[in-house]
């Protein structure tokens, strides 16, 4: 059983429709640790020791957040800047995180078609997440294809409930090692693999 750590960043969860549902699901799953960064550090005072200890305690790190300006909310950047220390996370003697898995779990307001070359946003999700992917690689961890919940602006209550159910089953599958991670390597997003898993 893999130990999951969700690094969750949403600055206004009270206004969120989708993440509020998702994170409630996650909090109910045994073996999943939810680290709600904005709730834990409202003043951006990241406790580096606590965060590093959390990372060491888990096998799979999920970066869960809405897409803000083609990137993460601000606190997740602050978290990277402070927690991933040279000599600990990277560098010739920085091997603390070696071998761990990292998954970006992202919501976007726009639909999947908007994140294509020639689409409204001109770049794919994978391209936009290149800084994260490279950060993960530099810290000697493995970056999985991101799982993206597209088109949240147009979701009604039923669609949100369905997304939350899929999310829950995804977390359970990750926890119980039921996803063929070698097989998904190289695909742009995790979504097709998850769809297959849930149908099968």
């Amino acid at each position: 059983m893999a130990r999951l750590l969700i690094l969750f960043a949403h600055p206004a969860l009270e206004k969120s429709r989708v993440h509020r549902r998702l994170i409630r699901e996650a909090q109910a799953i045994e073996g999943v640790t939810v680290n709600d960064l904005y709730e834990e550090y409202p003043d951006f005072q990241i406790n580096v020791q606590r965060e590093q200890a959390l990372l060491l305690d888990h096998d799979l790190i999920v970066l869960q957040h809405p897409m803000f300006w083609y990137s993460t909310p601000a606190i997740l950047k602050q978290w990277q800047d402070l927690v991933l220390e040279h000599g600990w996370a990277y560098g010739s003697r920085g091997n603390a995180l070696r071998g761990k898995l990292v998954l970006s779990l992202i919501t976007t307001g726009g639909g999947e078609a908007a994140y294509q070359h020639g689409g409204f946003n001109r770049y794919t999700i994978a391209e936009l997440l290149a800084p994260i992917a490279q950060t993960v690689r530099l810290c000697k961890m493995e970056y999985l294809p991101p799982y993206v919940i597209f088109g949240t602006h147009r979701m009604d209550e039923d669609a949100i409930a369905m997304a939350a159910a899929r999310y829950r089953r995804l977390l359970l599958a990750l926890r119980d090692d039921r996803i063929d991670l070698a097989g998904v390597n190289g695909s742009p997003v995790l979504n097709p693999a998850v769809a297959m898993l849930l149908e099968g």
Partner: protein
Amino acid sequence: MSGENWLFQAFVYLAAAVVAVPLAKRFGLGSVLGYLLAGVAIGPFGLGFVGQEGEDLIHVAEFGVVMMLFVVGLELEPALLWRLRGPIFALGGLQVMVTAFLAAAAALALGLLWQEALAVGLILSLSSTAIVLQTLNEKGLLRGEGGQSSFAVLLFQDIAVIPMLAVFPLLATHGADHDAASHAATTWTAGMPPWAQTLAVLGAVAAVVLAGRFLIRPALSAIARTRLRELFTAAALLLVIGIALLMTQVGLSPALGTFLAGVVLANSEYRHELESDIEPFKGLLLGLFFIAVGASIDFALIVAQPLLIAGLVLAIVALKFGVLFVLARLFRLSFDQSMLFAFALPQVGEFAFVLFSFASQEGVLGATITGPLVAAVALSMALTPLLLLVNERLVQPRFGTPRQTEREPDAIDEHHPVIIAGFGGFGSTVGRLLKANGVPTTVLEYDSDRVDLLRRLGLKVFYGDASRYDLLASAGAGEARLLVLALDTPERTLELVHTARRHFPHLQILARAFDWGDALELRAAGVDHVYRESLDTAARAGADAMRLLGSRAYRAVRAAQTFVHHDEAALDELYQHRHDFSVYLSEARRRIENLERIMLADREDRSLEHDAGWDAESLREEVRSIGMSRAPTAPGGGVSGQDT
């Protein structure tokens, strides 16, 4: 009652109450029944400690009813009273008229003269304000629809007593016993023509309203400024007694007068303080009243004519119950609220004792009629708590609608989720921040000048010593979620913490502390959220000092915030080990010791150092040691780009 006899009497009454009431409550019978049973126990037919003076005592103790209506008035804002005008006049009026008519018809059928029957009917239509309000309040039923309707009817009955007193002399069938009726002539208005009497009544009511608005509040404010608690209590008692006297003099019910004064003062900042000052007197006098009613039940008469008395009680209660239930349904109360309403009011009230003696003085009713009726009235009062128990245990579970909806929001008083005790610099900042974000707060403040000022600014501020349990209770501590303590001294803060933890364990307490010695004591007293007033501002001053010495602003701010977090953790640590080293040390020695431990903790905390994640020094070293060929790879992911 002479000297030592008086003390003995007091001893007997208090002892009976102290023994009987907790017992009654233990068995779920409520305090009213406890008092009544205590009265029976010490009365002439129980242990015989109390003789005929029981009935005199009823008249004294009736002042408890006067005080109760003052307190009820204090809790009733004029707007709510206005909204209740329908139930008061329509429901109350119909209840009195229909009950009086049916009871009179029954009495007529039993062979009474029509005048006698009418008097009996009118008297029997009244219910007991004291028993009903006390019992419903104790059960928390007063704020439901059935409770509000009961209150409305009782209020109308209090008004209805006045015309009844006026009409009774006209119903006299035999010579009036005017020697005993001398009290009627002592009022100022007795000799006046009717129009002047009416004017006097209206004038008295206007005087109470105007004085409440323009005279009593400034007077209370001046008294509060002396900061003598007992003087304020004296003023509160003086107010109630004065109004009662005035009302008696113009021939109005004193209870009605104090009720009116209560309503006028309901919006004032002294409302909670007045309430908590009057409350104990009210409670004691009411208790005395119930004991007296219990003691005055004439068991000799009951034993002599058991069937007659039992039949009377049964007939009265059944008749009133029927009228009440039908009226409640007509006024569209739900089934279970109608049941509560009908089960609450079917007894005959304490005014019956007054009216029966008045009626016999005026020659309306003879002793053969009043004797059995007085016994029946007392029994019907004693029966009320039992009837409500029957409703609660047997009727509601079987026939009541199951309670799935939440209790309706409080109509009598909006209870705010936050109570702030102390509204100086600290408390007012908390209050303003919450208010700016739409969180309503109830403020308790002991400085009456500050209360005046804040009220002029339109804030809801109440005057009073927040460490008193009763004031906290009337400020809504039972329903509130948070209590913010911003009092001026650590002693009073601790006192209030103990009171709140004992009586309102659900309240989360946020307490202002002055220094860490103080903070440790608050933590030890069970407060989880402690705020040292100097910590954050001192840290900000420290950060500014760093800036003035050339530090970048963000580094200074982050250093200060890190320090605050560290300091709170150090305090926590100190608190965990407080027993290890504090036992043998004096207070002053302990403070120095504490300071030493905190400073030592500073040295050991790695987080107080400059943030390593933003420090590229080790990274630069590594790059230099590897050589220029690898240089572009390593810093690409780090943060060194911002540096050099």
